[in-house]
């Protein structure tokens, strides 16, 4: 009687998806109620997994490469002579939808020409990584190619303060003095 009721219900109601399957409520046959054949079958399946290769990537030692379009941690760029490109124009801060970027401008003094590319530079440049949504609009807004998103992400930290990245965290290593570190930080990005 119950089954009949359920059938009527099914025929009246339209199924929401085509993935629903009727559940069999048949009592177990004698062979099934022995449990053993099914158990042996299951155990064979798990036994086979002893010989399968496991897909684990042992993280700190092994790392998966990011895709070249990955938008990760920001990098403040330098030019070929190792001078900072940023002129503290503030376009990135304006473009930022999360308001994660603040900066303070300063004027280049005589004798600092090998440090800063133009007469104005960012004395302070901070990105709050907890606010940042990694949209990449700062990269698009920058007229000087001074900021871009790299292929790493912000590592975990114990304090909120630790997520406010200053210039010393963001600036790419100098290509003249530390060419290897520069190449590593630059990553596979080609459009710099």
């Amino acid at each position, binding site marked *: 009687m119950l089954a009949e009721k359920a059938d009527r219900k099914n025929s009246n109601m339209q199924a929401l998806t085509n993935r629903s399957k009727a559940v069999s409520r048949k009592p177990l046959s004698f062979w099934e109620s022995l449990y053993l054949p099914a158990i042996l079958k*299951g155990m064979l399946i*798990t036994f086979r*997994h002893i010989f*399968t290769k496991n897909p*684990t990537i042992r993280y700190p030692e092994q790392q998966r490469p990011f895709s070249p379009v990955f938008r990760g941690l920001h990098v403040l760029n330098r030019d070929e002579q190792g001078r900072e490109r940023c002129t503290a124009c503030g376009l990135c801060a304006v473009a930022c939808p999360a308001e994660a970027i603040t900066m303070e401008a300063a004027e280049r003094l005589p004798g600092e020409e090998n440090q800063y590319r133009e007469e104005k530079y960012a004395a302070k440049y901070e990105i709050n990584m907890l606010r940042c949504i990694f949209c990449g609009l700062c990269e698009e807004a920058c007229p000087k190619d001074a900021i871009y998103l790299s292929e790493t992400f912000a590592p975990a930290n114990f304090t909120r303060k630790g997520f406010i990245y200053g210039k010393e965290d963001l600036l790419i290593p100098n290509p003249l003095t530390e060419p290897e570190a520069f190449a590593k930080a630059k990553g596979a990005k080609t459009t710099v």
Partner: protein
Amino acid sequence: MSLLQLDVLLLIEKLVLIVIIVLASLGIALYTTFAERKVAAILQDRPGPERAGPLGLLQPFADGLKLIMKEEIIPSHSNKGLFILGPALAMIAALMTCAVIPWSSSLELFGRKIDLQIADINIGILYVFGVVSLGVYGIMIGGWASNNKFSLMAALRGASQAISYELAMGLSLIAVLMLGGSLSLKTLVEQQMAPGSLWNIAYQPLGFLIFFVCALAECNRTPFDLPEAESELNFGYHQEYSSMKLGFYLFSEYVNMIMSSAVMACLFFGGYDIPFLDETTLSPNLAAVLGVLCLLTKIVIFLFVFMWIRWTIPRFRYDQLMNLGWKKMIPLALFNMLLTGVLILMKQEGTWQTILHLFKK
């Protein structure tokens, strides 16, 4: 008077043996926890614990240290004495079983013949059963003393399950004892070792199957781990326990597994008998050492099967568990007993005589 004289050397010998065996079983249990995690990982295509020490071999010590360092909480409404007694009893009962297991034949050291068995008592297997049923008290007392509904329910489940399956276990055992004619584990092993005789598994495949399933239930292992069903009873009877008291409960489960593996190896797989080899051709000391290794290998194989089953099969529903125990296992064990009896009679008196016997009365 000479009967009452204390043999000091024997006392020392037994004490040393007890210390070695208890420490060894604790050590093996320690690494069984590690093996459990590793086997689970391998069956699930993961690497498992591998960071603590080389290949993760220090993992059990790290786990133990973690348990010891944790805060020890005794719930304010619990019965303090019983709360402490519970895990202690579980651990003691688990370790006591190892007293009658014959680990190997005897060593000859310093001109003495040293039996590698703590006590060869003539009711060995009955002793094992008695001690194993004491282990249920560990669960009962722990669950009751916690003063917690879930713990109490888990304890009740554990007790009723253990009692139900002990019946079938005992009945399946009777068939083995009918073959051997002795309750001493050492005698049973020696009978299987004797040249020309097969292991008991050859005569009692059905008996072994029943015994194995019941051993799973006795150890509260999947698919019979209802007392510690995480999904239904939070954590089972040790829900209120913390620190090393919890550690004792978890640990006693592994010691129980080792001991039931050892008993199964002794009863059905020839104990310390090395297959396809006549031990009498070896020197007695070498045979004893190889025997220990052989028994340990058998235990390890059983432990692997225990784990393999745990990570394959889901838990039984409670009514299914009881149905299986009372309506399938016990009749099957009785049938096995009857069949064994008839076959023994046939061998002794011939087929016709047996049939006459059966119908005369």
